[in-house]
């Protein structure tokens, strides 16, 4: 259950969210809130329900039950009031491959109604170091370059809420680090709220104020990275993740100490 004060202060409020596909429960009553201006990670193994949850937050997947409020608006009823103010990246979507990077970004600038698209495009080209390939077709870029372009597209409308599914998965450590720095700077400068799904625990420890741990479509634990590491008696988030994903004794002990259920 979410406390009223937390829900009031939150950019994202999810209540008892459920998704059932024919005979599979992908998400089973997830509730959480993401405070404004913070970064929260959704963690869990493959099939834990992270992408399903993000998809419902974005409005591209209809929940079986429950509600999602983003920036105070009910996504089921007033999605279009919110969509101009949010954005996302996901490995499940791509950009048109035959269009150049510039053409792709220009299209999304117009879709989001950016007032000065030419200048915004120049800023993003500069900030994401796209100049060398901005006039090349998107389909000819390396995986890392495509990820940078996707992030540039995600920041085109200067979103107040940014949902990131594996944002740095295909980047080399150097570029990945620069992107994480960029996201930190962007958040500091804009006060943006970020929710990210990631398997990179170093990234989670560095970027995130809170972590929500999912297993089999339910929230099994949540808290600040340091608090979780201490609670599980581990050294890193990687070890906490393994405990939770595998449902080991430490995870169960932690649950007992917390007075399960945890969600």
């Amino acid at each position: 259950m979410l406390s009223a004060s937390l829900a009031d202060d939150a950019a994202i409020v999810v209540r008892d969210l459920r998704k059932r596909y024919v005979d599979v429960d992908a998400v089973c009553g997830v509730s959480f809130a993401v405070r404004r201006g913070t970064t929260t990670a959704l963690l869990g193994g493959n099939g834990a329900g992270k992408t399903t949850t993000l998809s419902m937050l974005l409005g591209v997947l209809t929940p079986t039950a429950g509600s999602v409020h983003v920036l105070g608006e009910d996504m089921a009823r007033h999605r279009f009031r919110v969509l101009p103010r949010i954005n996302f990246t996901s490995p499940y979507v791509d950009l048109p491959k035959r269009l150049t990077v510039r053409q792709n970004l220009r299209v999304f600038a117009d879709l989001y109604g950016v007032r000065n698209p030419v200048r915004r495009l120049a800023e993003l080209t500069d900030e994401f170091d796209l100049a060398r390939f901005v006039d090349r077709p998107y389909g000819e870029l390396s995986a890392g370059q495509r990820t940078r372009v996707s992030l540039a597209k995600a920041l085109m409308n200067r979103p107040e809420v940014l949902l990131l599914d594996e944002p740095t998965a295909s980047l080399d450590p150097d570029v990945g680090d620069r992107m994480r720095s960029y996201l930190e700077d962007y958040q500091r400068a804009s006060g943006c709220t970020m929710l990210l799904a990631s398997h990179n625990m170093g990234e989670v420890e560095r970027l995130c104020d809170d972590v929500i741990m999912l297993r089999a479509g339910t929230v099994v634990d949540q808290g600040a990275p340091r608090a979780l590491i201490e609670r599980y008696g581990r050294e890193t988030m990687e070890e906490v993740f393994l405990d939770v994903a595998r449902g080991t004794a430490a995870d169960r002990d932690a649950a007992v100490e917390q007075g399960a259920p945890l969600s």
Partner: protein
Amino acid sequence: MNAARHHASAEVLRAAGGVRIDADAGLHPQTGPAASLRRIRALVRRHAYLLLHSWPRLFSTMYYPTVTMVLWAFLTIYLAPTNDFLRSAPGFFLGAVLLWDVLFRGQLGVSLTFIEEMYARNLGNLFVSPLRLSELIAGQLTMSVLRALIGVGGACLFAWLLFRYSIFSLGLPLIAFFVNLLVFGWAIGLAVSAMILRWGLGAEELAWAAIFLFAPVSGVYYPIGVLPAPLQVIAWALPSAYVFEGMREVLLRGVFDWSMLGIALALNAVYIAGGSALFAWAVRYARRRGLLLQMGE
């Protein structure tokens, strides 16, 4: 915090990592006709980049209508000396083939625009953007007009250059024929898009094949009267049958039948509403099944 405050409150700055939040970098209003037109224009721009900046695509858009026109033109030249009917209306087959292509390009323009998004795995981006479903459809229809004008326009130009046949010899009724066939093509195109969204790219072949189901009962090259009675019932339920019958009336008797135009328009209103409803249903289905983020090559 709302969007305007969010953007207005931020000052121009360049943070350590190079992030600039510019007070003047907000968004246009998101509601109203101007916002809708801007988003439709964005979608058209996306597909126009693809079509107009690729000569093979432009060429193939004109290629099939032109080759088909040339075939029918030579058939007319071959048959006309021995056929009174063709002697009195030499543009009969050419007019029919060019108008048929309006229907085909109209449908194809809608379906291919949608398939392009699926191939590109771009549907997720579009459905998370402020683009409304009605605007997506409007963008598809606009691209359909563009493709029809390029494809059929090219064939019409070659018909005049090679055979001195002008489709404009049909006079003002040509506009009525063009509009009706285009709208019927849109309706079929939306229904095909719905089926592809429902069953995935495996159903892509429908985009190319579906229209030919309507060819035998549209009376493109022969009067509806030659069809067996049950097929005539089906034919008279299609706007295309009224258009091609109307075209023959104009070519053979120089008469434009307004009642046929009225029936075709009324039928088209039903078909376009049905096609849009089917497409909207398919999008709701895709949202329930999580297909919008999954579909692609």
